[in-house]
């Protein structure tokens, strides 16, 4: 996904002279072609996230479209106020490309685990949050980010993630019904679409059919599709590679509560609980540890149906 997003930045920049790229201190091979062919629009600016955001905002206010990449935790936590004021308040066309969204960097420990990026950015007016499921969806998504007004956060997966998102034109703000069933609805975003699909297969073998709603745009939320799908089933589970506080699960819960589904629906969030994840291992082993697995989703759906 990371390779594709960078390839796309290069391709888009070749066609559109307004596009700039800013990195902090990225790998030496990153966008080599961009740097060679469009050196004045390629900026590697050092480990100074507050400055990077401010500078990007300045360029964007002058009519440029700035793609800015660094590690997710540094890109969101370190410079949060710059994001709020210089990007969101001023509605500048800066696209934050966050490497290692969620627990991709599991072996690197808590400083690198972006388990709260969606929650903190979701609270800020004018921010748009995207989390595609795979590299192909990223390829479809990127052209939509060029002329979109206001800042965008683009959450990257690990890379090599299975291609599972439906091959449909990408529209920012639109949810995609990936499967339809009558017993439960699984709502998800990003790479956990694959986990949800696996869970659906497990449940299907037991005669339970589920719908899957993939929301690659977390903000603005496609509440219409959420409600259309939710009304059809008694049970709803939200799965995300993120803390259960303030992310997609919370967002969906807010929509359901306000639609008056309180008594008639069984609902559960699956994600990282309210802890700093402990230990290292891999993204997969940490997902396993915190139950972000097909097995746990399937069991949760069954339990809610009891």
């Amino acid at each position: 996904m990371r390779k594709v997003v960078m390839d796309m930045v290069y391709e888009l920049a070749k066609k559109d002279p307004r596009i700039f790229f800013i990195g902090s201190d990225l790998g030496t091979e990153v966008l080599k072609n961009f740097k060679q062919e469009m050196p004045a629009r390629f900026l590697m600016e050092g480990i100074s996230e507050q400055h990077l955001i401010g500078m990007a905002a300045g360029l964007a206010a002058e009519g440029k479209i700035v793609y800015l990449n660094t590690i997710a935790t540094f890109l969101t936590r370190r410079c949060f106020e710059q994001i709020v004021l210089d990007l969101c308040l001023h509605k500048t066309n800066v696209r934050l490309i966050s490497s290692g969204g969620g627990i991709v960097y599991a072996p690197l420990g808590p400083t690198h685990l972006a388990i709260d990026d969606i929650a903190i950015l979701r609270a800020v007016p004018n921010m748009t949050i995207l989390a595609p499921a795979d590299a192909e969806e990223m390829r479809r998504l990127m052209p939509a980010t060029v002329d979109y007004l206001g800042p965008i956060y683009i959450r990257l997966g690990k890379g090599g993630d299975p291609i599972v998102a439906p091959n449909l034109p990408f529209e920012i703000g639109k949810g995609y019904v990936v499967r339809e069933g009558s017993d439960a609805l699984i709502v998800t975003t990003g790479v956990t679409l694959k986990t949800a699909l696996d869970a659906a297969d497990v449940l299907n073998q037991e005669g339970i059919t589920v719908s899957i709603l993939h929301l690659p745009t977390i903000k603005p939320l496609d509440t219409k599709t959420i409600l259309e799908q939710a009304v059809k089933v008694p049970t709803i589970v939200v799965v995300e590679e993120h803390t259960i506080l303030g992310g997609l699960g919370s967002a969906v819960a807010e929509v359901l509560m306000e639609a008056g589904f309180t008594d008639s629906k069984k609902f559960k969030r699956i994600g990282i609980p309210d802890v700093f994840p402990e230990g290292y291992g891999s993204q997969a082993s940490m997902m396993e540890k915190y139950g972000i697995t097909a097995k746990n989703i399937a069991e949760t759906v069954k339990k809610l149906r009891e």
Partner: protein
Amino acid sequence: MKLDERSRQLREQMIRVMEKGKRGHLPSAFSMTEILRILYDEVLRYNPADPLWKERDRFILSKGHGCIALYVLLAEKSFFPQEELWKFCKPDGLLGGHPERHIPGVEWGTGSLGHGLPVGVGFALNAKYEKANHRVFVLVGDGESNEGSVWEAALSASKHKLDNLVVIVDYNKQMTYGTTFEVQDLEPLAEKWKSFGFGVREVDGHDLHGLRSVFSQVPFAPGKPNVIICHTVKGKGVKFIERNFSWHHKSSVGEEEMKLLYEGVKNNA
């Protein structure tokens, strides 16, 4: 040094703004009155009829709390009607306690410190990229210079050889709690900026001739960003608020005090 009539009049307007809005960071505004006056009277290129005119010089008031001074000048230059000044901080007013970009003539919304210079670097970098000859001026406070982002941006300005960027430091040496020397000493400040690759000038920030002269020398060295360290007095112009720590921000000023402020300015002739 006594103030001339224009400097006194500008301060009287600011007092009036504070009187109407019943609040404001008056001493911070007084500290940079001469700097802003010279900028808007003689240095900056702008067009009030077309505030976003492409060739305008960009001015960012990064120490946004001093905005009363900026508002008075922008109103005087017809960026917006004078009447707006009398609605300062009112529910239906254009002008709040910190500047916002929707105000004609305000280049960037500030209020949280340490934001203006990174944005200014973006502006200046864009001007270089576009081979445009407008300039970018960013006024920062001395307390603001505690923020790491100021120095991150300084590194970047120097790397990109932004000689079209002028940082102005309002060095009144006074923060909210105490002096900069007590709270967080910036000295040797000129040396710091020099070591960050800037062309540096120091000037008395209330001396009109000195300011004029130093602005006319920009760029100080080709290929280097510029900084002008303006030695100023917080509250300058009214003796009883000068260097008076109880006067950083006021949200209630009695009639008697207002009278004293007007008299204070008048007496500074």
